[in-house]
């Protein structure tokens, strides 16, 4: 039983201990504050929850943070509940971006965020509907990205040791899209097309619109030692990439898909395509028959592939136009048959502006 006297003594010794601790802390603090060696400020964090306009969480999407001083990029991925955490940043000013998600959510940007040492900035992000206005079922890319977010494993290999790129892939837009530098006439035409909302684009007439492969669409790769076949839900639905060392034919007549050959540079498949006609659109840009496309496919692991597309066309662009994408595996999904001209009732409504 603690008597009053014991209590008093206990308190006194507590106080003594507290006083001693305070003294030590002060000394330590002083030492640190005046230390000649580099001091480490506690890192800063940002966290929050990302939701769509229906207030639903958006899982499995990337969040990017750029140090405006050094240019260093930090990336996180939202959890199943839509929450993200970016940590380890030095105090400073940052620009945050959430890339567009499929056709469903617009890109989000917030610049000039000030992060202070040791603080966690709370930033909840309400995304905005993109072109499809959130129409349920219109865009599988969010659903598939979330469904297969836990896909894990090493890169599968062919019998000869080369990476096997086979699979159904859920594509994405470039996380940080760059507009190309185009010749004046080409730039003007692209601007006109954009303002008219892509009136008369090839895809409104069921003409091929999937070469090179870009955008949040499904791509299926079927790889054999001598040939890589790419299947997609558009016309003509299939593309052949020859892996047998052949060169481009000399007397090739221009086509929509061109002629593609692939070769391995280490574990990256480099695909070169020439022989295009001048009828397709690259985004809103026209191109000439001089178009030369270089694709680089690097499968990082079972579920992820870096895909880079470079478009060169001296008749259209001042410099090569580079698009960087990350494709996510969607195993267990299948391509659907795509017959654009059947019961095509959209075309009368696609009048643009």
């Amino acid at each position, binding site marked *: 039983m603690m008597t009053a006297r014991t209590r008093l003594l206990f308190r006194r010794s507590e106080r003594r201990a507290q006083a001693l601790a305070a003294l030590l802390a002060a000394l330590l603090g002083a030492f640190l504050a005046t230390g000649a060696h580099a001091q480490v400020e506690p890192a800063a964090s940002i966290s929050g929850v990302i939701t769509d306009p229906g207030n639903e969480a958006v899982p499995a999407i990337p969040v990017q943070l750029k140090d405006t001083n050094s240019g260093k990029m930090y990336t996180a991925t939202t959890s199943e509940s839509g929450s993200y955490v970016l940590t380890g940043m030095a105090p400073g000013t940052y620009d945050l971006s959430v890339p567009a998600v499929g056709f469903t959510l617009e890109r989000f940007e917030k610049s000039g965020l000030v992060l202070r040492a040791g603080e966690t900035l709370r930033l909840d992000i309400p995304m905005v509907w993109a072109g499809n206005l959130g129409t349920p079922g219109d865009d599988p890319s969010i659903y598939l990205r979330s469904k297969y977010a836990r896909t894990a494993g090493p890169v599968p290999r062919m019998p000869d040791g080369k990476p096997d790129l*086979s699979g159904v892939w859920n594509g994405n837009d470039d996380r940080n899209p760059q507009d190309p530098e185009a010749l004046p006439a080409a730039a003007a035409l692209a601007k006109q097309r954009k303002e008219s909302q892509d009136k008369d684009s090839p895809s409104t*007439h*069921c*003409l*091929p619109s999937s070469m090179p492969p870009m955008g949040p669409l499904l791509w299926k790769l*079927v*790889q*054999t030692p*001598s*040939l890589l*076949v790419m*299947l997609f839900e558009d*016309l*003509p*639905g*299939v593309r*052949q990439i020859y892996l*047998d060392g*052949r060169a481009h*034919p000399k*007397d*090739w*007549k221009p*086509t*929509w*898909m061109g002629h593609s050959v692939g070769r391995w540079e280490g574990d990256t498949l480099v695909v070169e395509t020439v022989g295009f006609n001048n*009828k397709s659109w690259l985004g809103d840009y026209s191109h000439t028959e001089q178009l030369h496309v270089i694709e680089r496919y690097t499968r990082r692991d079972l579920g992820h592939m870096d895909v880079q597309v470079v478009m060169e066309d001296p008749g259209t662009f001042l410099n090569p136009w580079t698009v960087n994408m990350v494709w996510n595996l969607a195993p267990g999904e*299948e*391509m*659907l*048959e*795509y*017959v*654009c*001209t*059947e*019961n095509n009732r959209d075309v009368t409504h696609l009048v643009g502006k």
Partner: protein
Amino acid sequence: MRKWNLVVVFLVGFAPCAHAQWLNYPEARTPRTKDGKPDLSAPAPRMKGKPDLSGVWRAPGETEAEWKQLLGPHGLDLQIDLEFASRYAVNILADFKPGEEPLRPASAPVPKPARPEAANPCLPDSVPFTGFVEPIKIIQAPTELVILSEGKGPHRQIYTDGRSLPADPQPSWMGYSVGQWQGDTLVVETAGFRDAPLDAFQHPRSEAMGITERYRRRDFGHMDLETTMVDPKNYTRPFTVKVTLHLIPDSDIQEYICVDNERDRSHMDK
């Protein structure tokens, strides 16, 4: 004459004119005779212990006499390149004497297309028609075969990973196909068709149709193909057509975009 128009609708959509580009590339895997020509009688190539069906294949075509018998004396006035077409593209029941076809009376071909869009020359051709009228390219991979068409497509996928046909497939032009090896014969089952006609004569197909194909690569240059069709709604019993496909060696199929500069539709009878 109605039937005539339908044949025109069906066949005029097909590309390759004689002056289109021809793709020749001497493939390393092609077995050759002493003078360097492809050896079409060499043994069939193999992949993982099974025959490799990969290659560009065409139906053998028919003689002038056979076309006249099938289409009447003015059949060849159509001036269509039918070198690569099998009689079964025009009439899947060509083997039957008139009056003995296993066709239910209520299912006789409708002379006039029921839907205006049936005159759309760019709609797909379905199975087995695609392989009977245009070159096809078979690409064999470990867990599936992909079949490309030089016609209107679309492509087919034949899954060989052991899966079964889906219980309730979405109807499509090419159906859903799974394949299994029985010895050296690939047996392909396809279901989930929409009601696309079977041939130029518009013999009907219901969504209940099932098709079994048996592919046997006899040697490097020849593939025996038996196609059995089962559709109790329209036919009194299953029936089978047999075709031997010929390899087009060291070649490839060409791109064909039917809707590109498509100007025929406005001229066709509706």
